[in-house]
Each structure stands twice: as structure tokens, then as C-alpha cells.
């Protein structure tokens, strides 16, 4: 008997994305289809220019496809306007960036509470929720610290707290370990996996980092805007593992 898979939270059907850059047309993505079940931790991998960040932008509602459909948490994103997409992102997506991108003029608590300004929560409830989120990432003792007084790993934890504070359907991370040393990178990947295990969050991550293969449930390999499948995908994964040494993912 086949095990029942959870409902897909992300469905991408025949998606293409083309840009016009100067006089050239760039095919960033070409006829990509995939679906990601709820509660999975997936990685988009591939070399620079492979289209993985473009795919992440489409999944997170930052960009819209030139063709095909992007459906996330039951919402077809193609038809939403710029402002509608912004509102949708505020309620459904938590974003994590490579360079943390915290507001330097705000404390850790206020940085985490920033997305809550877009909700109807009261002035007293917003910092309380921010403190809970900071507690989840282990920074309950750094509430009033400003970004410049935090280490890189701590700043990325604050960014993760900011991403989860609105309890989004999906967490989207763009090279979250790209600016961290090995120890902090492992800690951040661990934390993302913990969010999946403990809170059932769907986490989608773009990375070059071969270590990520040990943490993700599924890895999608892209090259030149095309999603690799079958033997090509296996070879791409092997090549990536070879760069970091083959270590089985913990807990899998």
C-alpha cells in the first residue's frame, strides 16, 4: 500500500520566466513544473544563472511568471497585482535573505515585530509575539540588541524569527548560509529543519551549500533555467555531494 502524501502547498505548472535585458531576451526559467507537499523542506540547487533564485521569487510571490501557473497555499499568484502580492506575502510567506537584511536602526525585537505592523495586532501584542519568535530561535536574551552588536549567526537567527513571526504557510530562504561560517551554517540549517519538524512549516531554500543536502527532504537541481530530472538530477546531486563529502542527512 502506497503512503498518502500530504497536499501540495506549492504547485508550479509549466512555468517560464523571460526577462528583457537591454536588447536581449533572457530565458531564466523554461517550462518548469513541480509540486512541494506541505511540511517539506526542499532545496533549489544549481550553479549561478541556473534560475533557482527566479524560481524562489516566483514561489514567494515576489515575481510573476511569463507563462504557466504558480499556486501557493491555494492562491494562484499569476493574477495578483503588485500590491495584492505584497499583501499576500505579508500573510503567507516568511522571507530569509543571505545577508540577513535587518534594519540597523531597530532592535532585534523591533526587527522581528516589523512584519506584524502589517497585521491588526495591538501595540502590546506585537512585541510579545516578537519575543516568542526570538525565543524559538534561541535569542530570548538578545531582545534589545541592535544588529551591529550581534554576530552573523545571531543576525540570521533574528531574520528567521522575523520570517516566522507571522506564522506563514511557507518559509523562503535565499542562500541563508551564504554569509556564515561552517558552524553557524550548520546551526541555521538545523534551525530551518527544526521549524519543519516542530511547527510543520514548509521551507523552500535556494543554496549552493552542499551541506544542505543532509537537511532537505527534496533537492531540485536546475541548470540554465531547466529543472533537471532522472539521471541528470542524480548526477548533479552526486557532483554537489562530492564537493562536501558524502554524509547522510541526520535524522533521515
Amino acid at each position, binding site marked *: 500500500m502506497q503512503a498518502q502524501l500530504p497536499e501540495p502547498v506549492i504547485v508550479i505548472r509549466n512555468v517560464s520566466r523571460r526577462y528583457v535585458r537591454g536588447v536581449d531576451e533572457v530565458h531564466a526559467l523554461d517550462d518548469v513544473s513541480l509540486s512541494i507537499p506541505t511540511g517539506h523542506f526542499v532545496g533549489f540547487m544549481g550553479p549561478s544563472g541556473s534560475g533557482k533564485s527566479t524560481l524562489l521569487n516566483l514561489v514567494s510571490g*515576489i515575481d510573476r511568471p511569463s507563462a504557466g501557473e504558480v499556486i501557493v497555499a491555494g492562491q494562484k499568484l499569476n493574477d495578483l497585482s503588485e500590491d495584492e502580492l*505584497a499583501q499576500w506575502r*505579508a500573510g503567507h*510567506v516568511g*522571507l530569509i535573505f543571505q545577508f540577513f537584511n535587518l534594519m*540597523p536602526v531597530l532592535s532585534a525585537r*523591533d526587527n522581528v515585530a516589523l512584519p506584524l*505592523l*502589517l497585521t491588526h495586532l495591538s501595540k502590546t501584542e506585537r512585541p510579545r509575539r516578537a519575543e516568542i519568535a526570538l525565543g524559538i530561535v534561541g535569542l530570548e536574551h538578545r531582545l534589545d540588541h541592535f544588529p551591529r552588536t550581534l554576530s552573523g549567526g545571531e543576525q540570521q537567527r533574528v531574520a528567521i524569527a522575523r520570517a516566522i513571526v507571522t506564522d506563514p504557510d511557507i518559509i523562503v530562504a535565499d542562500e541563508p548560509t551564504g554569509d556564515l561560517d561552517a558552524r553557524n551554517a550548520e546551526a541555521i540549517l538545523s534551525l530551518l529543519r527544526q521549524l519543519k519538524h516542530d511547527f510543520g512549516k514548509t521551507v523552500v531554500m535556494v543554496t549552493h551549500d552542499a551541506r544542505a543536502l543532509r537537511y532537505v527532504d527534496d533537492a531540485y537541481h536546475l541548470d540554465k533555467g531547466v529543472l533537471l530530472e532522472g539521471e541528470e538530477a542524480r548526477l548533479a546531486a552526486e557532483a554537489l555531494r562530492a564537493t562536501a563529502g558524502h554524509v547522510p542527512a541526520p535524522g533521515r
Partner: protein
Amino acid sequence: MKYLSLVIANLRRNRLRSVLTAGAIMLAVVLVCLLLTLPAGLDAIVENASSNTRISVHNKAGIVYSMPASFVRKVRQVDGVAAAVATTWFGGAYEEAGRVTFPNFAVEVEHIGAVYPDYAIKPEQLADFRRYRDGAIVGRQIMRKYRWKIGDRVTLRSTVWPVDLDFRIVGEIADEDSPYFWMNNEYLDQALKAQGGAGLGITGMIWVRAGDPSRVNSIMRTIDELSRNSEAETACETEKSFFSNMFGSLQGFITIMIIVTALVALCIVFIAANTASMAVRERACEIAVLKAIGFDRRVIFATLLTETAALSIAAGSAGVLLAVAITRALRMFSGWSEALGPLGAFAVSAPVVFQGLALSVLVGLLAGIVPAYAAARRPVVETLHEVF
């Protein structure tokens, strides 16, 4: 309101730049407020110096042309005239290398008090003015300036007549801002005759006091009618009109000042706009992140515009307060220093306060609107591509 903490935090981001921009806006608002007080201040000076019953009678050709001294007797006969006095410019210089530093006139001592009852000259001083041929009555501003006191003797050297005359000060005009020096026209007349001349025989200006303000216009018409077809036709005008015309030459200057002020305000808009643009450019990455996490264009635009407007309004409010403080200080010190003279008449009125605040709002909005709109309107994906 919930975004206010974000706005305040961003204003504190680069305190020196915020303070310098606010300082520029504040000084512009101070300048504008002070210049806007000029027209009202001049009106106040004219109002203070004028009576609604006094009439100036001078040669129709201009105030530098004279009239026969005898004409004043005809004026006194006009129905409704309570008093009239002939005055003649003496142009006397005191000490300061031939320069006339205060207005001094030869007047009819018997009539001067009746024409200027509001000058509050003591009766005994007016009596002394009549009694002593070399007597002089001096405004308090001049008394203060030269540290004169009643009983002092002073010499004025005329720049108009070929005489130097010694005077004894017998009284003062109680008004603190009065700059006049009055002498007996008989004294001048005799001095001129003693030089072998024909005597005074003429007058430069006749001041008339009407018994009833409602009759001022008819009196002016009658006096002008009296002089028609004579060698010295007259032009009557109210005292307020006379002083307004004297200040009229300043109106062009004030207009230029206001144009300059408007240009200064425009410069400040550009400075503030440049600051706002720099602030937005430096924060392109943060704005991209805000957009990415769900801040829509309206919120981005509103928060950025509020930053510039808040800074400008705060600076403008400080500027208005400073302008009020400056005018109050001028009023206070003008009583102590004659150099400040009529500056005490300038006051920042409620409309000027409103205009100063409106200017600061306008500067804030004009300076902030373009960078805020530019930052808000760009799609999030473009912004992210640019900064990451």
C-alpha cells in the same frame, strides 16, 4: 500611527544629517516669517505715527517745494479746522560732519501744541517754547540718543539755510520713538534777516488738525480749492496717507526681499529633496526587504514621505518659535537701544505663524514626494535584483 516608530527610528539613523537639514529649513522659515512681518510692521509704524484727524498740506509739485507762509492763515479759516501749524525743514546737522541725523523743523510755537495734542507735551514746556525764542522741543528718541536733557544747549548747523543756530531744550515729546526736533520759526526768520536776507516768508508743510474726523475729506477739498490757480497749488492728504507714501518707496524693496525669500525657500526644498533622495538611495536594500516582506507601495510611500514631512514640520515649528522670539526680543530691546528704533513694531502675527508652518509642510511634501514615489513605485523584484 503604528508606523511612527519606524519613521522616528529612520530619522535618528543619521542624526547629524537630520540636524543639518532641519537647521536649514528652520533658518529659511525664520527668514520668511521675519520678512512676512515687514508689510504689517510698516503699517503698524504708520498707524502709530498717524492721527485720523491730522492732515498734511504741501505743494502739489512735491514736498520739497514751498508755499507762502501766509497761506496757513487762510487754512485756519476753513470750516472744521481746529488748528493748523506751518512747519519748515531746517535740515540741521548736529556734530556729525554735516549729516542730518534726525528730522528738525521750524514751527509756529503758538500753534504746534494744538495740532499735536496726542504728543503729550507738558503745558509748562509748551509755555517755555513760546517764551524762549531759542527754545526747542525734542523727541525722546533723540534725547536718549544724544543723552540730552531739558535745559541743555545744542547747536545745529543748517544744511538748507545759511545759519548755525544755538538752542536751549525746553521740552520733550513724550513718545519714546519720536525722532523730531522742533524750533521756533521766528528764531529762524530773525537769524535769516540778520544775515541780510528776506527772512523765512515761506513754509514747507502745513499740518492741520480737524475737529471732527468725519470732516477730514471736506477740509482737504476746501484747502486744495483755496490754493487753486495760485503759484503754489496744494495737495492735501491724511497723515496716514502721507507716511504711507513716504514708506511707499520701501514697498519695492520689500517685494524684492520677498522674492529673494521665495528663492531661498525653493533652495531649501532642493536641499531637503537632495537629503531625502540620499536617504532613500542609502536604504534601497532595506526598502527592498520591506517590500519583500509585504509592505505595499502605499505604506512605503507614506512612511518615506512622513519622514521628510515630520523633519520639515519640526524644523518649521522651531523656526516659527525662533521668529516669534526674535521679534519679541527686538520689541523689548528697542526700548533700550534707539538703533533698533521702529523694529519693535514688527511682530509675528497668527497669519504669519500659519504661513511659516504651511511653508514647512510644503517644503517637507515637495522634498519628499519625488524620492518617496520613486522608491515606492518600482516593482519589488526590480529593487531586489538591483540591491542583491
